[in-house]
């Protein structure tokens, strides 16, 4: 799905999804045949609290243009409290990204339940557009 026909830029986006809600939400988007850009590539983790900020940095270092993290809605985490830890940790981490030379807008944290196939697809569409607008992530190229 080329978002901007005039641009030759195809962003590379990594999505981390917790197994119980967001990964299942992505599956539902699939069974409901809801379209979203193919640039989104999902990595499954047991819970949003398993997402180490280092994975996000690694992705940027290796050339990702955007990284999106998804977990169960607050209160719904399969392990009860995982997404609370994730929310605190990731918010803090995001606030330090500019300092590392990565635009904050290249990241996003979203709660997607297993029933929200629609939300999953629309979130991915919106995020891809956002990354498109930002253009290529070139700032960390020197340390690749």
């Amino acid at each position: 799905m080329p978002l901007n026909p005039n641009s030759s830029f195809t962003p590379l986006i990594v999505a981390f999804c917790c197994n119980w809600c967001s990964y299942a939400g992505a599956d539902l988007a699939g069974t409901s045949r809801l379209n979203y850009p193919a640039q989104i590539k999902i990595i499954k983790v047991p819970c949003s609290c398993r997402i180490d900020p280092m994975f996000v940095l690694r992705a940027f270092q290796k050339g990702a243009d955007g990284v999106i993290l998804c977990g169960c809605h607050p209160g719904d985490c399969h392990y009860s409290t995982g997404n609370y830890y994730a929310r605190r940790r990731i918010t803090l981490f995001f606030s330090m990204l500019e300092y590392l030379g990565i635009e904050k807008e290249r990241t996003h944290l979203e709660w997607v339940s297993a029933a929200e196939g629609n939300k999953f697809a629309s979130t991915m569409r919106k995020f891809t557009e956002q990354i498109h607008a930002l253009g290529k992530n070139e700032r960390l190229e020197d340390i690749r």
Partner: protein
Amino acid sequence: MQKIGVFVCHCGTNIAGTVNIDEVVENAKHEPGVKYVAEYPYMCSEAGQSMVQKAIDEHDLSGIVISACSPRMHETTFRRAAARTKLNPFMLEMANIREQCSWVHKDKEEATNKAHALTRAAIAKVHHNTPLFPGESPVTKRALVIGGGIAGVSCALDIAEAGFVVDIVESTPSIGGKMAQLDKTFPTLDCSACILTPKMVDAQFHENINIHTYSEIESVEGFVGDFTITIRKKARSVDMKKCTGCGACYDKCPIKKIPGEFDEGLGMRTAIYTPFAQAIPNVPVIDREHCLKFKTGKCGLCETVCAPDAIDFEQEDELITEKYGAVIIATGITPISLDKFGEYAYTSPDVITSLEFERMTNAAGPTKGELIRISDKKKPKSITFIQCVGSRDVAVRSKTYCSKICCMYTAKHAMLVKDKYPDIEVNVFYIDVRTPGKNFDEFYRRAVEEYGVNYIKGQVGKVVDNGDSLWIQAVDMLDNKQIKTKTDLIVLATAIEPVKSVRNIAGMLSASIDTNNFMTEAHPKLKPVESPTAGVFLAGACQGPKDIPETVAGAGATAAKVIGLLAKDKLITNPCIADLDPYYCNGCSACEKVCPYGAISYEDTEINDHGKKAIRRIAVINKALCQGCGACVVTCPSGAMDLLGFSNRQITAEVDAICR
């Protein structure tokens, strides 16, 4: 180097319609470590599975990747297939090229590229997979119920009926809990003792139930399926085996003026006592704090009148240690203290709580069911009920939650008064009347429409006791005017809260409690009767305000879950759990604090630090408790923790492969 096999599924046209399978196959062949690649129209079919199995054996594969549908769909299928070969089932990864690729993308080239990238990521991950082995742990087929209220008793009966042994530990001298103190119960107004006592008797005589009253939990060790728990049976000073329950002792006891707990201090009891007539067991207890024999060494009257010679002043606390597979917390609730609610003049004898009112209307209660003012023993001409005392208020002295049962029991109390004394005027001050539930709203409306109970929407600001009557200052919120009115007796629908001791119980069992001290469920919707700690279950009002129907229904659900656990001979544990490298652990406790299951503890361990042996405090993971969330892994400041199946190396390899 691994020898990896890749199996690409067409899923009919589901995948093949959008993804160029040949290209995915061709690309996979060039990935490092890939020794064998195959495609098939339906990989999950019998034929597909045997093809995978055959390839594993023939090509001596050490890891496999199935590029097909979602692992949520068929991971188990393929793990089972792998298990039929010599390959460890955890040496398998799936690339989701259907739900997360062919079904959501239309452009064939884009979808094919993505299918390739996802397959590449799975191959990269498998390189770091290690064989994993599910653990096994034993299950002791015995349950422990803490708290002998209606929740504990009905849960125990349900478990016992299924053939498992259940022990009940109750801190007071008798089982029964709050329900035993009630007079009639909403919404049917049947007598509480009439429906409770038969259940208590059933529990007492059930061959699978052992009741330990006047007992406490002393210590807990172990985990799901294998708890070792020590119970302290406090010295009753009466031999349970000899006592016949005749009651001669308490008739003779000279200390008669102790405010009775069961009667909420409205009635007096003796130093040797049974809390109420239908107590189970019907064996008295000596309250050593008040007993003359214990205080002065003189008396012993009870001993002289006890025909079976059951009194034993020398009796000591007894410690019983037993193994259990499951523990049920059913410690219930109690009304909050009104010390900080000076405006309601609770210090006045004619201002009572709803639970005191229950005792007063009870025919077996301190006034034999007669409604009187405690101060002058006269029948009141008017009674005023005040709802929401200490509930639904953000002030520190109060509870923010709704106590849920008060609207209904206040309507009940109002009707009970009107039934017995139609001439007494009954007023109720309320903020909202909340009566959802089967036949509940009808019940409240009966109070208003049939019994003429006067409901006033308004908050009471002050109560003053002027000797022969009580003055109430309030605001009528519907007419927005001040009310000043006189009444003879005030009943406070006092907020309920969990018992204090539950904190200690929860601590010993590593079960979590919320800011109000209510027990937390493992999942608010999907696991409503389990605590987050495996093997620890919840029943009754210790989870949150509940009435009797809800308590009993919930206790049945709890029993079903417990039976499900006890029916197993052993527990197979998930092998994708936390994995510690003791060498890097500094014992900082960071991981212990984030683990929702209390799966981490510490042990002094000998570490070989560059040839130097040192004893260090190191984290230890309980494999039966860890659920593999990964919270501890990311929290560990030393990088000592990792997660099997989702290790740092595995995830990093996936990231790298996708970004390649």
